[in-house]
């Protein structure tokens, strides 16, 4: 599959081949979804603000290819990829982003809060770093209730500066929790390169807690899938690990951000490392015909258009229902 010998040998180690077409499909679903979101947003159909993960799809697809539904993830403000790769319903997703009653969160959360407990997606999160301790807690519950199940905390390189990272790394190490820390290092934290904010490397930080650390090319879906497979197996057995994925933020921090602060050259380079194009090239060389690829793309696109139609046909959420749903209906457990 991959032309890179290192990956071949790693694949051999891992024992089982990666399902590259599945990875590709997962990435394509994220990409096409976000491309459509960009136009829907520009057209005013998506309220609020949205952060796209275009260029970063390999991380979501790769890591999630090794998780089961029982495994949980806690995500970030840039969480569409995590959500879709974890298996959120596309209709529920679009309905949510279009603020419909039929949305996964009934139109109350939007892009920054998409969640689906039934597939172990504990929510995107508007608070940088907050997912770390939620995943920590989830891992703790897994350890007690469902040995072999893990939690994954996704976070960006900007989030590295939050104190919560330290607290959760320490507790995860102390209690040997089945928790995988996945840092999506796209080099940016809003409008500032994160190297101007972070004085340490995650590798050395992880070493402080003696937590196993691996760095992987986050734009190589196969590499992410293979490396994370091994790591996740280890996490299931014996405790926390850190996986840092070097990747690229193609679009602005949020939609509408013209990225004036960013070098044109930097932006042009981006295409070269595109995870989808890279994966496609490998697939073409090895097993998939152009027709098959086109058919896949068409499938993905039509699923998306269908979901958009469903979302568009949806209704505004009901205010009274929302207001009542702040607490669980049964209320307190009376004697």
């Amino acid at each position, binding site marked *: 599959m991959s032309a890179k010998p290192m990956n071949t040998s790693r694949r051999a180690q891992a024992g089982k081949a990666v399902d590259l077409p599945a990875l590709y499909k997962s990435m394509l679903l994220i990409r096409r979804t976000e491309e459509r979101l960009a136009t829907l947003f520009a057209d005013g159909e998506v309220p609020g603000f949205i952060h796209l993960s275009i260029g970063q799809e390999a991380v979501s697809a790769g890591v999630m290819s090794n998780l089961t539904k029982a495994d949980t993830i806690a995500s970030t403000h840039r969480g569409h990829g995590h959500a879709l790769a974890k298996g959120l319903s596309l209709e529920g997703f679009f309905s949510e982003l279009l603020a419909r009653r039929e949305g996964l969160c009934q139109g109350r959360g939007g892009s920054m809060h998409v969640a689906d407990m039934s597939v172990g997606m*504990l929510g995107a999160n508007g608070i940088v770093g907050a997912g*770390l301790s939620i995943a920590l807690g989830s891992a703790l519950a897994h350890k007690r209730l469902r040995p072999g199940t893990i939690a994954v905390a996704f976070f960006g390189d900007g989030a590295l500066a939050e104190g919560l990272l330290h607290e959760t790394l320490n507790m995860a190490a102390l209690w040997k929790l089945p928790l995988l820390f996945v840092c999506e290092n796209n080099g940016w934290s809003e409008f500032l390169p994160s190297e101007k904010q972070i004085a340490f490397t995650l590798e050395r930080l992880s070493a402080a807690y003696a937590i196993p650390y691996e760095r992987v090319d986050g734009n190589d879906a196969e590499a992410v899938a293979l490396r994370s497979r091994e790591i996740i197996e280890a996490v299931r057995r014996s405790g926390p690990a850190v996986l840092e994925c070097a990747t690229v933020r193609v679009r602005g921090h949020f939609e509408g951000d013209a990225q004036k602060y960013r070098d044109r050259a930097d932006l042009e380079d981006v295409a070269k490392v595109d995870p989808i194009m890279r994966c496609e090239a490998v697939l073409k060389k090895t097993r998939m015909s152009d027709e098959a690829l086109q058919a896949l793309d068409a499938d993905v696109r039509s699923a998306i258009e269908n979901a958009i139609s469903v979302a568009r046909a949806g209704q505004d959420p009901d205010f009274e229902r929302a207001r009542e*749903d702040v607490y669980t209906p049964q209320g307190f457990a009376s004697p």
Partner: protein
Amino acid sequence: MTEIRYLRAINMALADAMAEDDTVVVFGEDVSEAGGSFGASRGLRDRFGPDRIFDTPISEAAIAGAAVGVAMSGLRPVIEIMFMDFITLTMDALVNQAAKARFMFGGQGSVPMVLRTPHGAGLGAGPQHSQCLEAWLAHVPGLKVVCPSDPASAYGLLRAAIRDPDPVIMVENKALYGMKAEVADELPVLPIGKAAILRRGKEVTLVSYGASVHICSAAAAQLEADGISAEVIDLRSLQPWDEATVLESLSSTHRLVVVHEAVEAFGPGAEIAARMADVGFDELDGPIVRVGAPFMPVPFSKALEGRYLPDAAKVVAAVRRTLA
């Protein structure tokens, strides 16, 4: 009937909840090996083992954040924050995560966590170990807040909090930990949101919660000696609070004094007063007077702290003012 202490009632509630439901877990600083810094969880480690009750590092933000994740993943965590002053470090987990999860995820689930924490002055513990910050939490949609005033309500409310599907903060006045009272052999679980009328009276309603309830009772006794009949309501829960009971009482007494140890300005009593100045306006025959802490940090010196704290004399003065 047996006599137990407030702290022991909490201990019993934790034990009974853990025995009843093995998804209940307890964690926090020094809760396990040491049995809690005030002793609330003494003996639980021996009985339930270190998987059910365990010590954490001094990482309040992660403790509270972890509780959210734990609660989302099938266990019912009860965490302890050693002093309420330290909830400053847990606010994000409480407010942006726990409180909103059910609502913002479209009712997909809930966050059945309990945070126990002691508030209150009187021990010379100074400005960072004495604060009553429950007004912050009562202002946050999605949280529930209870504040028991005696052993029976400490037991009953903690049991209810642990059974509750949503996040509940239980605030315990540390001056009450040593308080003893006769209680029934079978202590009932108490409903969250329901007040108790401790004393019937005709001329003024005294509303409070937690330790201040006893100040109100003392004031009512003094007033009685002077021929003034005061009704005393123990709110027990602050969020939700029992508006109906307060309104009903006001409708018979027509005067209201609200008492608490929290700072008066922008404090919990403001809500009670404001509500009654609206829905209870027609019943009011005198100003609503609040008795709370003055607008200053809790001072260390006992001489200052004594002046700082609400007491029966201040409540009596407040009653006289509204009756004037």
